[in-house]
Each structure stands twice: as structure tokens, then as C-alpha cells.
């Protein structure tokens, strides 16, 4: 049996990769993927804990996270499309009309 902390380290690494991607990348789509990576790291955490504690709650939580992540991606892409029609770019750093 694979020890629990292997999963936790994997999840922590994925979370860190996602966070770094969010902070470093400038393309909206890549940033969105980084956020999905962070959410999936959390999912691994939940499933691993639920498995080792033989509890159901964590597994249910994963379904909620996946559903919300899908809704989030849909809304994020919709916002991007409406922005793309005006700005013709998907790069976040080129959207800088708001400053002060």
C-alpha cells in the first residue's frame, strides 16, 4: 500500500506548480489551466484522506469541487470571449486600462 504522505506530497507539488503558473504565466488560458491544477491538487488531497480514513465526506466534496470547477471554467471562458471581442487579445498583461 502506498503511504498517505506520498499523495500529500504529490498534491502539494501540483498545488505549487499551479500557483507558480498563475503568478508567472500571462495568457488567460494558461492561467485558467493553472487554477484547475490547483483545484485538482485539492481533489487528490481529499480523495487520499477519504481513502485512508475510510470516510465518505471527502469523496463527496470532490464531486462538488469538480462541478464548481466546470462552472468556473465555463464562466471564465465566457468572460474571456466577451473581452476578446473588444481587445483582440488573450494576454492578461495587455489588459491594463484600469490603473490608479
Amino acid at each position, binding site marked *: 500500500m502506498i503511504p498517505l504522505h506520498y499523495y500529500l506530497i504529490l498534491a502539494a507539488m501540483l498545488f505549487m506548480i499551479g500557483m507558480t503558473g498563475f503568478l508567472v504565466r500571462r495568457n488567460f488560458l494558461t492561467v485558467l489551466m493553472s487554477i484547475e491544477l490547483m483545484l485538482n491538487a*485539492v481533489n487528490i488531497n481529499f480523495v487520499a484522506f477519504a481513502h485512508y480514513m475510510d470516510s465518505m465526506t471527502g469523496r463527496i*466534496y470532490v464531486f462538488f469541487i469538480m462541478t464548481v470547477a466546470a462552472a468556473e471554467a465555463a464562466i471564465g471562458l465566457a468572460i474571456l470571449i466577451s473581452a476578446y471581442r*473588444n481587445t483582440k487579445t488573450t494576454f492578461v498583461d495587455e489588459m491594463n486600462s484600469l490603473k490608479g
Partner: protein
Amino acid sequence: MQFLPADMNIIMPEIIMALIAIIILLADLVIKRKKSLAFLGVIGAGVVAYTIMMDSPGAAFSGMFISDGYSKFFKLIFLVNVILVTMISVKYIIIEKINLGEYYSLMLFSTLGMMVMASAGDLITLYVGLELMALSTYVLTGFIRHNTKSNEAAIKYFLLGAFSSAFLLYGISMIYGLTGTLELKDIADYINKNGLENNKVLMLSMILFVVGFGFKIAAAPFHMWAPDAYEGAPTSITAFMSVGTKAAGFAAIGRVFMIALPAIKLEWSTILIPLAILSIAVGNIAAIAQTNIKRMLAYSAIAHAGYALLGVIAADNEGIVSMMSYLMIYTFMNIGAFAVIIMLRGEGAKGEDINDYEGLAKKHPVLAAFMLIFMFSLTGIPPTAGFIGKFYVFMSAINAGYVWPVVVAVIFSAISAYFYLRIVMYMYMKEPINNVGVQNFEPLLSTSPAIGIVLIVAAAALLGIGIFPSFLLELARAAISGF
């Protein structure tokens, strides 16, 4: 877990809210006059407020959903918020050419999310409510699709909001691994039983909670999204989210920290102190330099999050009471101020620049008088309610032994008078000017009966609470008695 009929009674307000939002969404297909949808929304929210008042307290779905005085008080804030904002929106969204029925529906869905958050007895309910609130607000922020600023505000708000909820989720997963449960009461019991007060994982998840909620309430240093999102969003939505999202975040903070994590009270209040001080400092100092009034009020919203956090830092019942009444007062003064901004947004005139307020008292004395009340209240000058709110927050923090944060907060509060009263000075002491290059610049007020009612209600509430503060405090104390 099983579904009992009694459970349905407890979540009846939420069921009605969801139904009204769906009905408006469907009615939008057949109804051409969108004004009637706004009317339907206001009536519906009123009905929900009535059912909340009549609702008997209790816990539903084996503790996942709690209806008590605390949640009722916050739901009242959310409903006042949605009713007032719906009323100021009617004329405004026609001017902005976003007169669509989904607007009202999304606002009600967002309020539903806030209501679920305030009633959450479990971290699953909390997360679902939070995301329902946040996702609806992202869409509303970008609602002016033809406007680049609105698009950009939505993108920034969306990315940082999703980022912050990932942090919150990581914290939740850690606390689940530690205690094996997601129910707030069981988490507290487990921590007490096993003596986990000094556990490192518990500290980590607490810090992640602070990060996640800090983004939602726009507390510094997690405030970067707020000025951009508040400036770019439709003005009515700025009012909606500066009050609603913040109050919902505070409802969740109070619930999670006071019920699930009372064992590490000292630790989390120690972390929240620099957050509160930094919010007050950043908000008040950055607001001085702003020339756009929406952006100025965004920084002021950051500062007000800091003041309300002082009530949470006190970490006792009096502190929570002061935080709750502060948020109720903030609802009226902030929406009132935004209602005035919306009235100045006429056809062709933006009305967002501070210079647009020059000589307003000569042209529109009544409107200027209303703005005067709201600005005095935001500064915290008696006899307006803003003073009472700040007074009780500071009192509760001092009684809990935090004197120096209050001293700092008072100093910055004095600094804040500069930019609030600058508006008043512009309105009363300057002559109306015509903008250079604009012929016959005469901002037309976009008046409507609904917005007039909002101004009167907000001003009356502020003066009423300012002169008779005990009413609101007793309401908040009674609300928290079963906490």
C-alpha cells in the same frame, strides 16, 4: 443522512429565493418591460425577508445548514442590499444599454449564495454558497460586454477570485485530513478532545482560511483586485459587491473562526491584526490620490473591511455584535453614496470624476445634501450612523485588550476625512464649472422614483441609527444570543 419535512421548513427562504430567481429568468423571455422584472425581484426579496423573520431557528440536513439569529441578521443585510441595489439599477442599466432580465436574476442568485454562506454549518455548504455568490458576481462585473473596462474588471476579479478559493479549498482539505470531518462543531470538538491547539497543520489551514476569506472581503494585502473590479464594474454592481460580498465574507469568517476554531483564538486574532491595520492604512492612504470616485470608494471599502475586522479581532460576542452592526450601517451608507453616483451618470455624462461634483449644491441642493449625509457617515461624524458603527467596533477591540490597533485605526480614520470631505468641499464651496471643450455641459440627473426612495431610506436609516443606536445593537445582540 435523510431528508425530513422539517428540514424543508428551515431552508424555505432559500428555496423561495431560488424559485424567484428562476421565475425572473424565465419571465425575461416573454416580458418586454424589464422594469417589471425589477419590481418582481424587489417583491420577491421582500417575501423572502418576511419568511426569514417567521422562520423558526434550527439545524437542517444533520447540521449542514443552520438557521439561527446570526444567519438571520446577515440574511437581512443581504436582502436590504439586493432590494436597494435593484431599485438603483432600473434606470442605470437602461443608460448603460445593458437592460437585460438576467441582470436581476443573477443578482438574486448571488444573494442566494450569500444566504447559504451565512447559514453554513459545514464546510461543503460554505464552499457551495461562496462559489454561487462569486460566480454570479463575476458575470455581473463583466455585464457591460461592449465596454473594455468592464471586461477587464471581470477578468481580474475572476482570476483572483478563483485563485483565492483554491487556497481556501486547500485549507479545507487539510483540516479535513486532520479532523476527519467538515462540520464546524465537530471540528471544534475534535480539536478540544485531542488537544491539537498547537498543531502545525491546523495553523496552516487557519492561515489558508485567512487568505481565502481575506480575498473575499478585500482586506489588504489581498485587495489588489478590488480597485480595478470596482472601477470597471457597472456602478450598481460595484455597490452590490462592495456590500454583499464583504458581508458574506464576514459572515463566513465569524462562523468558521468562532465555531470551528475557538481553540486557537489567540493565533487567528494575532494574524488578523496586521491584516486589519494594513487594510485601514492602504485603503485610506491610497484613496487620497484617486480622482475617480468609484475607485476612491473602492479603497474606502478596503479601509472599512479593516474597521469591521477589528470587531472580529476582539473575538468575543461583543466584537461580533459590533462587526454585524457595522456591516448593516455600511450597507446603507455605501449604497446611498453609490445611488448619488448613479444619479450623476446621465446620458453622455460619466459623473465618475471627482471634478463632476464641483458646485453640485448650487445645481442640485437636495442631492448634494444626501451626498453630504453619506460622506459624513463614511467619515464617521456624529450624528450619523457611521460614527456609531466605528465607535462600537473600536470599543469592543479596546475591551478585548487591543489598544494600539485602535489607536492606529483612529489616526487613519482622521486621515480618511480628507478625501470624504473633499467631495463635500467640492459640492458646497466651488462654483459649478463647464468642462473644457464640452459645449453646454450640464449633467442631467437620471432620476427615477425608485432611486429617490433608496436615497430617502438610506439617509433616514443612517440618521435614525445615528440618533437611536440602541435599536440596532439590541437587534444584533438578540441575534447572537444563540450563537
